[in-house]
């Protein structure tokens, strides 16, 4: 059962289409990694799903089905109610989403007061302490009266997760949740998210540029380039044998610890700017496999098997094809 299903989403400013027909779905208890470089449209996609596109940006086409209901037809008040309860979000730096003038305790307890109508102060406080303990913040009783700036980045992210836990969301959108954190703290936060997910069957969309994290924490991956998804499928399969030349290039561009190379594989050039996009495949100017037809028509997303799809006229060979090629050359 899909918790979230996005269909042909188009998000644009008056001048340019930032997201140009994107479709993906996440099931309960699963994590979808949305990867791409800056400007690929991954954050705009997520903010649009949340009904919070940046100023001047509009969702113009497509459907955003949450539990079968199109979020685009909901009123702002209905959306607000959903965001508080059913849909949670975690952003890159919680310092920007927490109020610096209020104690952590106040920010957690106000939710119990206004949303759940709990009148007793002691009761609200006890619930907040319980939440902080669940995200493993040491000595929660004393930390409730601290301000956000008195927490480290990792601890602030734990608070953000705690606030989301209180909502018990069925869908959690995490936009680069660990990018600002130190590497040894990063994994702790993601482990915590995974723990929460397995307890409650939350569906998670994890937006990141870090391919290592996708491999470790996601079930499925969607690779975005210039406002479109170019390849999609189970993480294992896509990482083992990427079919889109961009996915392959990205994987080759990351230095690997135990793989001594003198040079990294490079994707030449740079991604196009929104608005400057020609017809045809958007990756063609940088693509080592590009041929004449790539520049004229955009390749639609097509299914490779029941789980994988790719948008490319000349994809990398599949395992079977390259094995038979190998057999042909060695014989």
């Amino acid at each position, binding site marked *: 059962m899909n918790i979230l299903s996005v269909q042909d989403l188009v998000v644009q400013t008056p001048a340019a289409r930032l997201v140009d027909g994107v479709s993906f779905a996440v099931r309960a208890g699963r994590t979808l990694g949305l990867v791409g*470089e800056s400007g690929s449209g991954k954050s705009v996609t997520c903010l649009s799903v949340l009904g919070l596109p940046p100023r001047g940006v509009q969702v113009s086409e497509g459907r955003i089905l949450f539990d079968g209901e199109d979020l685009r037809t909901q009123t702002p008040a209905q959306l607000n109610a959903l965001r508080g309860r059913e849909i949670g979000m975690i952003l890159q730096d919680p310092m920007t989403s927490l109020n610096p003038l209020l104690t952590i305790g106040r920010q957690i307890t106000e939710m119990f007061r206004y949303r759940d109508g709990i009148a007793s102060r002691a009761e609200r406080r006890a619930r907040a302490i319980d939440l902080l303990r669940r995200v493993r913040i040491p000595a929660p009783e004393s930390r409730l009266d601290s301000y956000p700036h008195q927490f480290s980045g990792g601890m602030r992210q734990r608070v953000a997760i705690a606030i989301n836990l209180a909502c018990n969301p069925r869908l959690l959108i995490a936009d680069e949740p660990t990018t600002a954190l130190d590497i040894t*703290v990063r*994994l702790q936060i993601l482990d915590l998210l995974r723990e929460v997910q397995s307890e409650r069957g939350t569906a998670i969309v994890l937006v990141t540029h870090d391919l290592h994290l996708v491999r470790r924490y996601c079930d499925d991956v969607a690779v975005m380039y210039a406002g479109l998804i170019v390849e999609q499928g189970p993480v294992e399969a896509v990482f083992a044998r990427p079919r889109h030349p961009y996915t392959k290039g990205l994987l080759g561009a990351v230095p690997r610890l135990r793989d001594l190379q003198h040079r990294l594989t490079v994707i030449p050039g740079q991604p196009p700017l929104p608005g400057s996009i020609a017809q045809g495949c958007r990756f063609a100017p940088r693509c080592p496999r590009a041929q004449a037809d790539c520049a004229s028509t955009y390749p639609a997303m097509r299914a490779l098997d029941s789980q994988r799809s790719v948008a490319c006229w000349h994809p990398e060979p599949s395992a079977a094809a390259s094995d038979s090629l190998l057999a042909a050359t060695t014989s």
Partner: protein
Amino acid sequence: MSALEVSDISRAFPIRNGLFARPASLRAVERVSFELPQGGTFGLVGESGSGKSTLARLILGADEPTDGEVRFGDRVFGRRTQDRHKRWRQRAVQAVLQDPFGSLDPQMSIGDIVLEPLRIQQHDFARDALQKRLDELLMQVGLPQEFRHRRPGELSGGQRQRVAIARALVLEPEILVLDEPVSALDVSIQAQVLNLLKDLQDALGLSYLLISHDLAVVAFMSSHIGVLYLGRFMEQGTRDDIVERAAHPYTHALIAASEPDALDVQADVQPISGEIPSPLAPPSGCVFHTRCPAARDICRTDAPTEQRLSETHRVTCHFPIIPQV
């Protein structure tokens, strides 16, 4: 022959918490020693508060050590020997910093930005000699010639970092201090810049001091690696000493965090918990003991001394993980 030799260098910043508080000090770098071989790369890896940027400033001469010395061949910089070779250091040791936008003046043209250090150091440079040097540098860093008239705002992050590299090269330095040179860049651009830095090193015989939080980037670039935690070296050695024969539990934690499958491979290595303590109040004994899965009583009370595991490999730990041969 070493391009750079750092011996027992420390930097403490005096801290006053209030009018009547006892003066304390933040020991940002504590007795660090290492050597950067000529034409090689020494990679410093560490998380926030590890003192890696303070160390970079000490080597660049932007800050002075409270103890110890920095030696470039026979030129020694210690507490009292600052001035004699200052001009040499200003030319021969250059930096490339993390944020290519923050380090370039938005009002200046790319050409002026690249040539500025040369104009300051040598006033008598002829006009066409300057232009020739600019042509050469833009080509070396892979930027089109017409970029000389553009301004930083018109460039992408990767292009700006190329400009910063050209500017660092204009005085024909011997050593480049690279402080998180690719952390602000996208993956595909990161690879371009790392390859460029390697090519330049091969072509110009440069020595690099590379600072990064990313062990994979450090391992890709470096011949030697030092692992910093709260201002102290936990472990240092050749690239293989660190990546293949890591002995310190912290190094193991960094490896596990940088390699997606490493945790499954080394099931006996536990992930570390907790956060980096404040450098203002470093833990007693071994500074890593609060997060160390292998910590015992002695780690809480006594600071370990550095042990030599081989000619190149040194570790500071009471209970290093020695691989069974």
